[in-house]
């Protein structure tokens, strides 16, 4: 560092020129509170002299107040951010730190190591080139070390450093270092990690951080800083891959210019290169690589550019431009690995939004093949994925997307899942491969269709979806509605627990996942009946908003009529026609809606029937009125 400061004071212009040429390395540190991870980052910041005096003074003051190092500077306090966690003494989220040396600039993602924060580690790892796994020399390889290793290899970080820390507390013994190294290599072989560097160190005492340690003459490898300054950055590897660019924005300032803006995920592109737009498959050649600084002779992976083409082909946001010779694949169904990031578990059958590159599609998990125990790497059978759960899942989309397997391209093979109700990012996923099983199924064009069938019946087909608690009066109202419709000559069908649970769905129970699947099947059957031109009445508790939304999305706009049979829990429980509430209260009936399973009331139903204010007859009349006003009958 001495070199830098001299250069800064003597020839700042030269320093800036040198600094300008530095590359950027992003790395992640993994370890628990006790491994000295924060101390290591604090030490790196300190050694790169990037701390300001006022920051140091503040930390010195805080060291006395909260520190764990007596009167010495507690480096960990340099990196602990939010007030709440400072008081707790643990780090709770991904924090990003910055420093630079003579050779490189660094961004560190600091992630906590507790099991419940797998989510944070995956987040930090998703942008990292290098992972530093912290191991306490006194304790060796622990469960959490295995977990971190698995996650880093899953996320595909190409370089792994095992930092065997606190060597000062084991008298800098080579034996300890060798034992841990051998243990780790044994384990790494099992999960297929190849590129590993081992460094014995003491973050607290500064051994092998920037200077080779005099306390460990037996170690001849690189220091940690030496490693970080020289390891190859992932970027350059991506430039060797075929060209890929997701179109983020169509740039159309006037009629003479039509550019496609995006960031190159991989490859190199030059004017004249032949490209293919996916999923349309149309081809053209690059006319210009347009930037604010003028047209470029070439663009490489990592650059944000605007491309113009020699042919006018229809391309919009969400499409992917790829090399014509080596285009990306197209698929609609995939095997994926999903890391679940939300308290609300992943349910097979439920639909989510999938964001991949600049494209957003609707996705549903068709099957959880197995869950992975992150501590033992065992495969377990699972019906749902809880927070921080990792599973191999099959996923099905509502339209084709362009993709590459995650292993070959981190940008075009990764996606996030978004909850459609809360808008939260609930999961992260990696595409393993496309499933070809449905590729040959195409929609057969037929002469007789829904419109023809329903016009014969002089009605518009629809689903009258009754939702409400058990005992709210759904079945009674449904029955009355069907009678009234039949009386006026309409063609109907009523789906309820009796005719569905005993046949089509007799394999399903009452857990949350089974309820989701139950509704999915009912929705699919209803959709077929709507296609047949019928007015379908369904009478199910259908407690989750997400599934009702799924059913709504299956049919055309206006064909789904949601009716909330709005009976308060105490009223329904009071009625208790079938004695179910009593059973549930006694604990004889598990997962009973309203008692130990939630009911999510509709926010904007087409009709809200407050049954305490009206008779079932009146309620049914209101439904008929609504159908008339909507022109269905």
């Amino acid at each position, binding site marked *: 560092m001495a070199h830098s*400061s001299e250069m*800064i*004071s003597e020839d*700042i*212009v030269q*320093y*800036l020129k040198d*600094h*300008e*040429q*530095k*590359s*950027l390395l992003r790395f992640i540190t993994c370890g628990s509170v006790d491994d000295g991870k924060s101390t290591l980052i604090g030490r790196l910041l300190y050694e790169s002299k990037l701390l300001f*005096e*006022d920051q*140091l003074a503040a930390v010195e003051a*805080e060291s006395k107040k909260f520190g764990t190092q007596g009167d010495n500077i507690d480096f960990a306090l340099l*990196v602990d*951010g*939010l*007030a709440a966690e*400072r008081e707790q003494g643990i780090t709770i989220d991904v*924090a*990003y*730190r910055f420093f630079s040396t003579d050779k490189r*600039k660094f961004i560190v993602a*600091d992630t906590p190591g507790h099991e419940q924060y797998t*989510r944070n580690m995956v*987040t930090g790892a*998703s*942008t990292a080139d290098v992972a530093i796994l912290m191991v306490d020399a006194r304790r060796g390889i622990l469960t959490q070390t295995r977990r971190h290793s698995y996650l880093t290899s899953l996320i595909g970080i190409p370089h792994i450093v095992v930092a065997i820390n606190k060597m000062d507390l084991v008298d800098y013994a080579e034996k300890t270092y060798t034992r841990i190294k051998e243990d780790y290599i044994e384990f790494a072989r099992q999960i297929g990690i190849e590129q590993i560097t081992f460094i014995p160190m003491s973050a607290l005492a500064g051994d092998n951080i920037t200077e080779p340690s005099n306390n460990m003459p037996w170690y001849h490898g690189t220091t940690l800083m030496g490693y970080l300054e020289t390891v190859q950055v992932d*970027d*350059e590897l991506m430039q060797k891959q075929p060209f890929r660019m997701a179109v*983020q*924005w169509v*740039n159309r*300032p006037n009629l003479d*210019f039509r*550019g496609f*803006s*995006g*960031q190159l995920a991989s490859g*190199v592109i030059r004017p004249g290169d032949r490209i293919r737009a996916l999923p349309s498959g149309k081809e053209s050649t690059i006319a210009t690589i347009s930037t*604010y600084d003028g047209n470029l*002779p*070439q663009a490489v992976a*990592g650059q*944000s550019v*605007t491309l113009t083409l020699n042919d006018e082909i229809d391309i919009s*946001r969400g499409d992917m431009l790829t090399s014509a010779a080596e285009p990306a694949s197209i698929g609609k169904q995939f095997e994926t690995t999903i890391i679940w*990031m939300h308290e609300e578990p992943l349910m097979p059958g439920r639909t989510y*939004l999938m*964001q991949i590159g600049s494209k957003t599609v609707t996705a549903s998990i068709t099957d959880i093949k197995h869950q992975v125990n992150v501590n033992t790497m065992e495969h377990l059978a699972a019906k749902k994925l809880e927070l921080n759960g990792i599973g191999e899942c099959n996923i099905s989309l509502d339209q084709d997307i362009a993709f590459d397997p995650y292993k070959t391209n981190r*940008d075009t093979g*990764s*996606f*996030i899942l*978004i909850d459609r109700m809360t*808008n939260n990012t609930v999961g*992260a996923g990696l595409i393993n491969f496309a499933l070809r099983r449905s590729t040959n199924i195409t929609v057969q064009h037929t002469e007789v269709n829904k419109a023809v069938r329903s016009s014969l019946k002089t009605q518009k087909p629809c689903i009258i979806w009754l939702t409400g608690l058990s005992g709210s009066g759904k079945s009674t109202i449904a029955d009355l509605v069907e009678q009234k419709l039949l009386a006026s000559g309409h063609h109907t069908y009523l789906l309820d627990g009796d005719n569905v649970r005993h046949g089509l769905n007799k394999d399903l129970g009452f857990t949350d996942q089974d309820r989701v699947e139950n509704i999915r099947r009912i929705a699919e059957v209803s959709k077929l009946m709507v296609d047949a031109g019928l007015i379908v009445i369904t009478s199910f508790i259908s407690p989750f908003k997400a599934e009702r939304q799924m059913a709504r999305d299956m049919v055309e706009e206006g064909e789904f009529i949601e009716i909330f049979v709005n009976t308060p829990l105490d009223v329904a429980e009071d009625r208790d026609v079938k004695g179910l509430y009593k059973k549930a209260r006694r604990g004889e009936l598990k997962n009973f809606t309203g008692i130990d399973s939630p009911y999510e009331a509709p926010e904007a139903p087409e009709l809200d029937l407050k049954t305490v204010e009206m008779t079932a007859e009146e309620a049914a009349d209101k439904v008929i009125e609504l159908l008339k006003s909507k022109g269905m009958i």
Partner: protein
Amino acid sequence: MSGKKLSSTELNKLRKEAVQLRLSGETLAAIREKTGLSNPTIISSHKRFIAGGWEAINTGKRGRPKTALSGPDSQHDCLEHMLTDLPAENTLWSSQKVRDWFSTHHHDLSLKTINRYLKSWGITAPESHSTATPKEWLMQHHPGLNSVQGGALNGLSTDDMPARKVLKGGIASFTTPAGQTDPRVRGHFIYAQDFRGKLYWLATAEKPDSKLIIRFLALLSHQFKSEMILSFHCVPLERYTDIQQWLARQSQLTLLTYSASIQSTRPVITPAHGEKELTQSYVRTTMALTHLQRLEAESIQIMREVVSKADNPVMLYSIGKDSAVMLHLAMKAFHPSKPPFPLLHVDTGWKFRDMYSFRDELVKKLGVELITYMNPEGLEKDINPFTHGSALHTDIMKTEGLKQALNKFKFDVAFGGARRDEEKSRAKERIFSFRTADHRWDPKNQRPELWKNYNANKRPGESIRVFPLSNWTELDIWQYIYLEQIPIVPLYLSAERPVVERDGTLIMVDDERMPLKPGEVPMMKKVRFRTLGCYPLTGAVESEADTLPAIIQEMLLTKTSERQGRMIDHDSAASMEKKKQEGYF
């Protein structure tokens, strides 16, 4: 300790201390013990105090004139004398007068030697290198001159000028070349200089105030019997009633003031200007991207995502250097289109004047849309940093103002220039930061950000702050400004500016709303700003850095972090976090 070895300023301090002790009833022996002064000195000081007050205690030049060759001591003697007294015949000091003093007290020296001494003491006019004629000078520094007829300027117009003697003047500090000030000769001087370079001055050990300026003006008028115009580098002096009264009673002298440094009104020319070949290396054809190229590409990717997903995005524009970089990146991201969103400046009414003019010129030049918004309630109640304090001012004008503006124009996504390296609590801030319908930030309810996949879905009423510069450091920002030749407000570069000291912070007196103590006159100091905000809340740093590399050099060598200059941070370590929860940024 012998009093004889002390300078007269130090001795005078001891004498005052002795009188104070005497007044508080201490015995002579005890005072002798504490101050080291002899009994006769203590007694005489006390007598002088009784006769003439505190001022009378001061002694002037001590001892007999020395005849030894001049050396550092004789120079100090001269300076000490200059700080407390006028030359013979009670005129202002000039190089000739200094020469006379040496002849009387030491021996003859050439005028050349005297000028060398003066230069080493820092007694030179800061803008003496100007080659402007008197008329040009007045036109440059007082552009309003021709338009103001009659009234305050007595019908003065540039055509009258040849008839009058024109002087340029100001207030400056003694500085030794090494940058260290000998405590014995620390002080300031009020000066006037004619256009042949001749300098006249009045020196003072204390901070100059309005009384001293009047004394200077009186001496100047007395010395030059002719009519004259003094172009004075200082804040407008009309605010001092005593100076105004003095000026009103005479007609010989016309006083004009200018406070903006002429340099600061010129556009910033970066050193790289005209050397585009040098910076061409930045757009390199080699394969590996530099760290700045990676950061630039990332920021552009983020901006394009926002524009594609937001209903009504806006870019918060604070006129500072981070905003400058953010705007430049936006120009790049959407080129050849203009950025498809307006800029929003939440104004407090207390920004530096240079900031307003810079903003208006830039917006015009780039052809982008700018919305400025000021909290009307705050405006009506005249919320200002002086009477209401920095906390309330910031809360009402900035935090509330921003919320009101976002609500009024129904912006759903707002770009901000905050960076993760600015403050510890920001290290965990997401790039897409979610706000509830009432603009609150909930640390527990932020979404994970994986790869380059940003989830911008939200419910009606909710909004997102997006920070495209999250991964930039202060050095990156400066280096990028330097490489890309991005225009910035000249206040970042050092220039002579009028400042006063408040609680150890240098505050620039940017306009007449800044309250001053009675008679207090701001000092012109070479200062610059590391961050820009409301001028009464933004501390200046004394600096010589007037080029971008010099700024970067200073930043790398000065070990205080950026936000120290901003007073709003000083409350507590977690204050930024609290402000964020309340929606400050």
